[in-house]
C-alpha cells in the first residue's frame, strides 16, 4: 500500500491553472524530493495534500484512505505532518511549549483539564527527546520569537515531527541557511525521517541528490519525471525543461 497517492489532482485560482493533473505515488518510508522551477506549483501541491486548499478535481489518498478535501486537523490526526516555507510558530511561547503543543494531541493529552501537562510522562519524555535531537535543549526556555533564524527553522522541523507523523511534508527547510547550517539540518532531517515517509521541497541540488530516494520534477503543475536521482540527472526532458535553465551539467554534481 502506498503512503501517499495523488490521482489527477487539479487546482486553479481564477483563470490560472496551477496544478494540472498531478499524479504521484509515494511508497511508505520513502524519501522523495520535489523539485521544479519557481511557480511550478510545489507549495500549492503541499497545500493541497495538507488540506490547506481543496483540489478542484482528483483524489488524494493517505495510507490507502481517501482524504481529498479533508480539513487539516483530520489529516494531522491521520498521520500527516507538514512544515512551512516561512516559519509558522507560536511566537510568544517558549521552545518547550511550542514542541509540547505539537506533541500534545498525538500523545493523547488533547484538551485534558484534569491533569497537569507535566504529569504526562510520555509527553514530557517526547519533548525532552525532541529538544535533544534538535539541539535546542539549552534554548528550551527562550521564546520562539527570540530564536535565531536557523534555530527557528530547526524548531519548525521539530514541530512537524513532534506529532509523530508517518508522512512528513517539509517545505524548503533549508531556505536562507548558510552552508554549514544546511548541512546540519539535512543530517537532522535524515535522522528524524527514518521510519517515516518524507516529501521535501528543496532547491539545493546537492541536498536533493544526497537525501532523496526518488526525485519528482514538477513543471507547470504536472509531474514531468519521477525516478531515482541518477535517472533524473540523465533525463534529457528534465534537463531541457528545468535544469537547462542553469548550466545544466554544472548544477548536477556527479557523485
Amino acid at each position: 500500500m502506498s503512503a501517499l497517492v495523488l490521482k489527477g489532482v487539479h487546482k486553479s485560482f481564477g483563470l490560472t491553472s496551477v496544478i494540472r493533473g498531478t499524479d504521484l505515488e509515494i511508497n511508505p518510508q520513502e524519501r522523495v524530493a520535489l523539485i521544479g522551477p519557481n511557480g511550478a506549483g510545489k507549495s500549492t501541491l503541499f497545500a493541497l495534500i495538507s488540506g490547506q486548499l481543496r483540489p478542484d478535481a482528483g483524489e488524494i489518498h493517505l495510507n490507502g484512505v481517501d482524504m481529498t478535501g479533508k480539513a487539516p486537523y483530520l489529516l494531522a490526526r491521520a498521520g500527516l505532518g507538514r512544515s512551512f516555507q516561512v516559519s509558522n510558530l507560536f511566537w510568544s511561547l517558549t521552545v518547550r511549549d511550542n514542541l509540547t503543543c505539537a506533541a500534545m494531541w498525538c500523545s493523547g493529552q488533547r484538551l485534558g483539564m484534569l491533569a497537569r501537562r507535566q504529569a504526562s510522562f510520555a509527553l514530557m519524555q517526547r519533548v525532552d527527546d525532541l529538544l535533544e535531537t534538535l539541539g535546542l535543549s539549552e534554548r528550551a526556555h527562550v521564546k520562539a520569537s527570540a530564536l535565531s533564524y536557523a534555530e527557528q527553522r530547526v524548531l519548525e522541523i521539530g514541530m512537524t515531527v513532534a506529532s509523530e507523523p508517518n508522512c512528513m511534508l517539509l517545505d524548503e527547510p533549508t531556505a536562507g541557511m548558510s552552508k554549514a547550517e544546511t548541512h546540519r539540518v539535512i543530517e537532522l532531517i535524515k535522522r528524524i525521517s527514518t521510519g517515516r515517509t518524507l516529501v521535501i521541497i528543496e532547491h539545493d541540488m546537492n541536498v536533493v541528490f544526497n537525501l532523496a530516494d526518488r526525485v519528482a520534477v514538477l513543471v507547470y503543475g504536472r509531474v514531468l519525471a519521477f525516478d531515482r536521482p541518477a535517472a533524473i540527472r540523465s533525463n534529457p526532458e528534465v534537463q531541457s525543461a528545468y535544469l537547462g535553465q542553469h548550466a545544466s551539467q554544472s548544477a548536477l554534481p556527479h557523485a
Partner: protein
Amino acid sequence: MPSETSVMHSNRDHQNAGTLLGLPRMKGLLLCGGMLGVAGLVAWGSGFAVLLATQICVLWCFGLSYQLLFGRTGMLSFGHAVNFGLAAFATTHAVRWLGGPGGWPIYEILPLFGALAGMLCGLVLGYPVTRRSGVAFAMVTLGLGELVAACFLMFPGFFGGEAGITLQRTTVASALGLDYGRSANQLVLTSCWSLLVVGVILWLAQTPFGLAIVAVRENPQRIEYLGYRTASVRWASYLVASTLAGIAGSMSALTYEIVTVDSVSLHTSANVLLMTVIGGAQSVLGPLVGAVFLTVMQSVVSDWTRAWLFYYGFVFVIVVLEAPDGIMGLFGRPRGERSTRSSMTRASGYGLFAVLLVVFVETCYQLTLGEPTQLPGWQDLKPPELKAILLCSGALVAAAIVLWLRSREVQQ
C-alpha cells in the same frame, strides 16, 4: 520512572509557569492581604464596605472567566454577560423552588446551580458562536447578547419583565448553620467561591487545555496542522468560561437578592471587558484590580461626581493606548523599563493631564447643570470665574492633546 533530566526540566517548567502567571511573591502577598482585609471587614467593617468587598469578589470571578476567553484564547466577546445573567436567573428560580421551611440545607452550594446553568449556556449558545473567530465571533456574540436581552419582555414569567425578579437568600437553609442575613457571612462565602475560581484558572493554565487555548490565540493556523480543531478548542474555552461566569452570576444574584435585565445586557458585557482590560488580561490579579477599580468608580466616585463614567472611559482609553497589558502588565515589565526617567516623566505628564481634565470636566458640569461640584472651593465660584477657569483648562487640555499626538508621531 522519570529520568533525572526530565524531572529537572519539569521543576524548571514549574517555576517558569509560576512567573508566567504574574509575580508569585507579590501575588501571595496580595492574596494574604486580601484575606486579612476580608477578615477585618467581617469583624469590624461597615455594611457598605462589606457589600463593596462582596461586589469586588463577584466581579473578580466574572472577570476571571472573561480573561480565560479573551486574555488566554483571544476571543473578544461582547456577550459574555449572557452566561452571567442567565445563571443568575437560574439561581433565583432554584432559590424560589428550594427555599422555604423543610428545604434542603444547601445554601453554600447554590453557585453550583449557576455553574450548571452557565455550562448549559456554553453548550447550547457556545456551539454556534464559536464556529467563527475574530471579528465574526465578536459580531455574533454582540447579536446573541441583544437576542437574549430581547427575551426579557417576551418571557416575563421567567425573567420577571422590566422589574426583574427577586429572591430572599435566607429562605434557603445553610448547611453550616450560618445566618446569611448577615452580609459579612455572605462576603465570606463569596470570597471562598472566588478563591475556588482563582484556583481553577491557575490549575487550567498548567493543563494541556491551558496550553492549547494559548496556542489557538497565538497561531490558529498552525495548531490545525497539529491535530487540533480550532473551533472545538474555542468551544471548550467558551464552555469553561461560561461555567465560571455562571458561578459569578449566581453569587451576584445571592448578594443583591435581585436580578434584572441589566445582568444580561450589553452594559454588563461591556463592563467585564473594560474591567479585564484595565486590570490586565494576562495575570489572575488583573481582573481583581479591574474589579476594585470598577467598584470604586461605580459606588464611591459616582457619589462624588456625575462624571464618573467619563473618567472611567478616559482611564480605559489611556490603558489601551499606553499599557495594552493593563495595570498588572505594568508590574510585569522588566525593571529597567519600569524605572527609566522617560516613563517617570510620562507618568507625571499623565497625572498633570488628569488633574487638568478633572478641573475642566467638573467646571463644565457645574456651569451646565448648575450643581456645585465637590472640588474644594468650587462651590463659592461665580459663573464668570467658572467660565474663565473653563476656558483656561480647556485650552490647556487641548494643547496637551495636540502635544501628545505630536510626540506619538515623532516616536513612530
